[in-house]
């Protein structure tokens, strides 16, 4: 989950954010998640943290930073990290990617294998639920097996929302075709809640890409889209090594449309068959991954 985008202008925000406060929030975010607040995005801190300031009855970010530094309040630091992480996501984001994943899963199943998929940095759950819908529909239509879908994120708040599978009217309408909404969601007040059969199709776990060992067991596909761009080059290389360790040889890595492995790791190479996806290179080193765990 990257840094939350806002509409506040830099000029408006810099007046209210001292460098001390920016440093405190940046250090907290980086220590917890490995993500960095680069200078050009630091002005966004103001808007991202405003709701938390209001909830705590504080007037300025300096007061919030002071509360963080002086009290060491774990709950407060968790809330600050959650607020700074960008939960930007939507159902079927970059839709053609999902066709490629279905194609890849079908090819793996032809080898009589139960497929395992890891959604790393799943934010509020729209990505793993999109996969769950696709494969549940395939199961209904053709009796095809459901892959294991494991969804992880560093934010407990995001994971709670993923487990609940409950979305606002604005969230449910982004990327989700209406027929799928009718099939897989129920109206709950003004929100829309995923049916239990859909939620049961995925396992939700806490996982910090920058610090934790790879998930146990071997995966066939890892999706990590629009997350790694917020990590420094060294951390990114380590995360690629962890993904390589978590994937079977020939396993697939799915990145965001603007992301690549080229020049950042030798563990992956562009897939020859599935354009835009990356394959774990045979014999890729996983030493860094196991050491980091």
């Amino acid at each position, binding site marked *: 989950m990257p840094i939350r985008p806002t509409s506040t202008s830099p000029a408006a925000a810099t007046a209210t954010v001292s460098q001390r406060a920016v440093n405190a929030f940046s250090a907290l975010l980086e220590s917890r998640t490995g993500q960095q607040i680069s200078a050009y995005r630091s002005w966004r801190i103001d808007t991202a943290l405003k709701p938390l300031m209001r909830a705590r009855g504080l007037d300025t970010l300096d007061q919030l930073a002071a509360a963080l530094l002086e009290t060491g309040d774990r709950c407060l630091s968790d809330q600050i990290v959650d607020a700074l992480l960008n939960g930007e996501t*939507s159902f079927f984001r970059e839709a053609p990617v999902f066709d490629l994943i279905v194609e890849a899963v079908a090819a793996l199943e032809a080898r009589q294998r139960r497929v395992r998929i890891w959604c790393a940095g799943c934010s509020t759950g729209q990505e793993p639920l999109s996969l769950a819908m696709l494969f549940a529909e395939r199961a209904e239509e053709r009796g095809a097996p459901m892959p294991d879908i494991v969804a992880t994120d560093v934010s407990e708040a995001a994971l709670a929302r993923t487990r609940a599978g409950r979305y606002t009217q604005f969230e449910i*309408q982004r*990327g989700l075709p209406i027929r799928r909404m*009718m099939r897989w969601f129920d*109206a709950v007040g003004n929100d829309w809640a995923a049916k239990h059969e859909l939620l049961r199709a995925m396992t939700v776990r806490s996982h910090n890409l920058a610090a934790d060992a790879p998930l146990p067991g071997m995966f066939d596909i890892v999706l990590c889209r629009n997350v790694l761009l917020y990590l420094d080059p060294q951390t990114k290389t380590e995360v690629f090594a962890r993904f390589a360790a978590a994937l079977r040889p020939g396993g697939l890595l799915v990145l965001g449309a603007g992301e690549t492995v080229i020049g950042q790791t030798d563990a992956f190479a562009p897939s020859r068959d599935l354009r835009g996806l990356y394959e774990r290179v045979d014999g890729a080193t996983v030493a860094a991954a196991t050491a980091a765990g």
Partner: protein
Amino acid sequence: MKTCLVVDDSKVIRKVARHILETLDFSVTEACDGREALDACMAAAPDVILLDWNMPVMSGMDFLRALRDSNIPTRPKVVFCTTENGMAYIRAAIEAGADEYVMKPFDRDTLESKLQIVGMA
């Protein structure tokens, strides 16, 4: 350039929708009820219709049924855009031939997303 007919009795909604659609490179025309919309479609069917439900003269649902029963040579995509957000309304609209459904209030992301889903953006 794709064409979109915005059908809504609210001038404000038509203005907001027009603004969003024009930023998405649509050529936009407007109608303030189902009858006007049907006349417009008979004259020149748009690629997509953004359709309110509750309107005077002819409702969105009556318009949709008439449109789908008509002999217009093309089949415009119809995206309902309404405050009728209950599942029964949504189901009725889809069964009557709507292609997508936007629940008001909406924003640019919602509208763009729905137009992408029907292959129009």
